[in-house]
């Protein structure tokens, strides 16, 4: 038995989600290899080689793997998968884009966003926005799996000394090309990795108030900023702030929900947070049913006061 972990990386280094996935791989058992596919990705390969528990790093360094286009990456992963019992990748938008394509090329099912490993062929995953958990047993010869990062600790980034081996690239598929990216620039911690998340909902009322209220608090706490779908749809915050069933899943030590009601779809993305604080003027808001500390108050007075007090 051996597990191939697909690295999420930016060519210079691997991202934390990769480390959570290595931990999930360790629970399956067997050798763990990491694939780094990219362009000029030696830096990422070197960081992957240091991850504790990893015995080999495969590097596919070619122009067609730049920006991880699914049409180019999937045939590579499918080709390499023949030598493994499991292929795991973090459940990031990058990997969610190409992993089902890999599974279909292999004619196997994909098991999406596992939150626990019960055995080498049996896994637990959430369905219905996390309102139901289910055990999934796979009868396929190769298990293709995406891993929810918040459900597994990060493997130590140092301590390993894996061999780094180049693999032959698959050809450019000629179906798609990258044009550009518009990334949200922020000095704050990355949302899915932050220790504290300050999140805002529709009650913030405008783009200006969303930023005016939440940013000073987030800056003081060293927190990331999240948002509900309603707040993103209303244009208060960019799409990558969205926490929930179809956005990001976070599980920080402290989650502060401000002016958000706590719709099922939002709870799906944050209810595993260690401590949840809710500030909302509607005392019937469902968010209070999952919060450890609830403050029924007008956010426009409570938030500045909170920012001042900490």
């Amino acid at each position, binding site marked *: 038995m051996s597990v191939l972990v697909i690295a999420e990386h930016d060519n210079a280094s691997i991202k934390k989600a990769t480390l959570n996935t290595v931990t999930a791989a360790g629970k399956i058992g067997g050798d763990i290899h990491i694939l780094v596919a990219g362009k000029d990705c030696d830096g990422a390969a070197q960081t992957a080689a240091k991850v504790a528990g990893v015995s080999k790093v495969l590097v596919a360094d070619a122009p067609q793997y730049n920006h991880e286009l699914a*049409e180019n990456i999937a045939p590579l992963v499918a080709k390499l998968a023949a030598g493994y019992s499991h292929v795991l990748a973090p459940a990031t938008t990058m990997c969610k884009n190409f992993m*089902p394509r*890999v599974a279909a090329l292999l004619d196997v099912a994909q098991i999406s*966003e596992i939150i626990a490993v019960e055995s080498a062929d049996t896994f637990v995953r959430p*369905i219905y926005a996390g309102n139901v*958990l289910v*055990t999934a047993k796979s009868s396929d010869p190769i298990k293709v799996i995406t891993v929810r990062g918040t459900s597994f600790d990060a493997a130590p980034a140092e301590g390993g000394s894996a061999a780094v081996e180049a693999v032959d690239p698959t050809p450019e598929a000629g179906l798609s090309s990258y*044009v550009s990216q518009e990334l*949200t620039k922020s000095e704050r911690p990355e949302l899915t990795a932050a220790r504290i998340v300050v999140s805002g909902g529709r009650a913030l009322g405008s783009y200006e108030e969303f930023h005016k209220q939440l940013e000073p608090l987030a800056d003081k706490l060293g927190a990331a900023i999240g948002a509900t779908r309603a707040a993103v749809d209303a244009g208060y915050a960019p799409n990558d702030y969205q926490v929930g*069933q179809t956005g990001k899943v976070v599980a920080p030590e402290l989650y502060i929900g401000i002016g958000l009601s706590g719709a099922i779809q939002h709870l799906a993305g944050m209810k595993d947070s260690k401590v949840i604080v809710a500030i909302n003027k509607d005392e019937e808001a469902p968010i209070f049913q999952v919060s450890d500390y609830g403050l029924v108050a007008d956010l426009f007075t409570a938030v500045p006061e909170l920012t001042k007090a900490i």
Partner: protein
Amino acid sequence: MKLLVAVKRVVDYNVNVRSKSDGTGPDIANAKMSMNPFDEVAIEEAVRLKEAGKATEIVAVSMGLKACEETIRTAMAMGADRGILVETDAQLQPLAVAKVLKALVAKEQPQAVLLGKQAIDDDCNQTGQMLAALLGWAQGTFLSKLEVGDGKAIVIREVDGGLETDEIKLPAVLTVDLRLNEPRFVKLPNIMKAKKKPLEVIKPADLGVDVDPRLAYSNFRDPPKRQAGIKVKTVAELVEKLKNEAKVI
């Protein structure tokens, strides 16, 4: 160009689903059913392409029980021209759905297949990508903007860091995110009109597709329930609790 749009009948997004006490499945026997919200966005986008003169025909497809006809009728009331129901009582998993769609693509020869990026019941987020692989087509996933050109499309995709723009060749599979558009309300005259639009019913076996599930699901259960905590009266009390009780700041 001709468009194929896949629509799934799911438990309505407002329903708070729980598992059955014997663990054999979700408890949804009497739940309100609706079109998967992501698929509604897909239909809306297809209708807008037709209204803009870029699409000529829209075929709405659903799979599952006879009741999925309702979902197809809704799609037709929104503007799809005709429907296909692949009727089966089998439990359909994404790979099987992708294989059925591939067979329908061979039959219908569309230039693009549109579908939601995920269904809100199984939360898989797989079918579109799998279909693209089976067809050897390009894929545009998690779309928040679509511009269809001559033999190609420019797609803006919602990714973890923000937005990514790609150019993809047509034919392609397009999976849509919620911010691509706002689906229209269906008007009563259009519901009446939709009843007269053609709806073909076929079986997976007619298409020669094996839809056997690859994953066995068991032990459906509710996640550990989070207990509601306390209400604090003031900001000062909140800060005190966070510092001294929870010790998180």
